[in-house]
């Protein structure tokens, strides 16, 4: 294969290579390199770790099945960390398809730690309106979510007793896929109500939130599956994200190689003849 023919490479060969590089490590578990937590992940971990036991935390799972690979592991790990520290969890979702994922996380982790729905955690479900929901919760959470996802009035739910607005929370943990998500929570809630916040986001949107880390509006940030893997390492509970790291490592190396090959192919193209 010469450089010129490389420029005509059918992209389906590239697709095949990516597929194999992702599937093989997941199937056979290569363990290429250990995961080293970053300062951003440590910030996320420390923000939860230093809360007094029994604090009430708002957990917002603003994602749907499309970003399940990146957001679900960090949602699961956050729930594990919170329940291990006996926090009360008030959960919600601002994506219509989000509540079942929140249910899965809370039920799975709740069963691990012997927590009861309604007593130790509750899933308020989904409400349409994006930032308006966040703003409305600042006035009254029971008015914004009169019933939980199961249809039970929040006035009858033990864990919701005394919860009126953001004043009753010690921390906001946001797992976000985009909009509405971390930026909106920072603008609507952190800036107005000064509630400490940590966020887990998709890798492509993580750079957007670095300014908020630097200003202290976010105390910690998990970026993509790598961030989730770092957090799993910190809570000493390797799970879904850790398993995906080998595949991600190989895929990243491959894409870097594709940039090089693409430019080599471009250089190898014969220049057009002048008339």
């Amino acid at each position, binding site marked *: 294969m010469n450089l010129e023919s490389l420029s005509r490479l059918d992209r389906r060969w590239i697709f095949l290579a*990516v597929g194999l590089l992702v599937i093989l490590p997941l199937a056979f578990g290569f363990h290429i390199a250990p995961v080293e937590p970053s300062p951003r992940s440590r910030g996320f971990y420390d923000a939860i770790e230093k809360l007094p036991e029994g604090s009430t935390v708002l957990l917002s799972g603003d994602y749907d099945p499309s970003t399940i690979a990146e957001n679900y592991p960090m949602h699961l790990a956050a729930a594990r960390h919170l329940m291990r520290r006996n926090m009360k969890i008030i959960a919600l979702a601002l994506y219509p398809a989000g*509540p079942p994922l929140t249910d899965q996380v809370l039920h799975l982790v709740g069963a691990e730690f012997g927590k009861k729905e309604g007593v130790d955690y509750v899933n308020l479900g989904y409400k349409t309106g994006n930032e308006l929901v966040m703003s409305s919760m600042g006035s009254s959470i029971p008015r914004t979510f009169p019933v939980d996802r199961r249809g039970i009035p929040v006035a009858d739910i033990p864990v919701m007793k005394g919860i009126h607005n953001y004043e009753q929370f010690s921390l906001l943990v946001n797992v976000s896929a985009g909009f509405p998500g971390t930026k909106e929570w920072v603008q609507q809630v952190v800036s107005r109500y000064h509630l400490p916040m940590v966020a887990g986001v998709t890798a492509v949107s993580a750079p*957007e939130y*670095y300014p908020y880390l630097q200003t202290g509006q976010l105390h910690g940030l998990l*970026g993509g599956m*790598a961030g989730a893997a770092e957090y799993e390492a910190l809570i000493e509970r390797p799970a879904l994200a850790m398993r995906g790291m080998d595949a991600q490592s190989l895929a990243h190396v491959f894409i870097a190689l594709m*940039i090089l090959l693409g430019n080599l192919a471009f250089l190898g193209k014969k220049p057009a003849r002048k008339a």
Partner: protein
Amino acid sequence: MKREIPILITLITGLFCLVGFFVPHPFVRLLYDDIQQWVIVIVGATYVLGVANLLRINMHQVSQKSPDWPYKIVLLAGLLGMMAIGFSEGVRYADDGSKFQWMYNRVYSPMSATMFALLAFFIASAAFRAFRIRSFEALLLAIAAFILMIGRVPIGNAIHPIIPAAADWLMEVPQNAAKRGILIGAALGVMATGIRLILGMEKTYGSGEGSS
């Protein structure tokens, strides 16, 4: 009047909401909070319009046997099927083991995740096809891209710890600075566009008229 009334409504509510951001007094706040509830209701109501449009167009294409009309039947079956399941199960749709949950876990969830997963393949092909180092700036961009791609995964730290450190520096210093600049510029653009709309200077999105 057909043109002036929407502009007047936009002006009054726009200015009121702008003022409401700065005024905590209940005289303003109570109505401000209520307006937010109204928007939630209105947005919810538009879904009825949307479903009606979907049904109208696709049923028409099925009746006319337009190209690919069998796929329209699949679309309509999926739409009506999920709605029927959801309505029939009522509030129990959220229970474990419900049909709605089955459809969500076995159909909707894998399909959504699959579409997002396509990005990995498209990024690889776009990197090969379109990322051309034609200038010095593009070369700098390529070097930064290499450092970041390798530094963001465990293999980077395994090669040498300076790689993730360099990746962190790139993200926290030059990337952050440039991003802040773009964000400030975009925020001013949002302000300018918003003020143009509130003051009625921009009416092209309304009916039948150009801008002022």
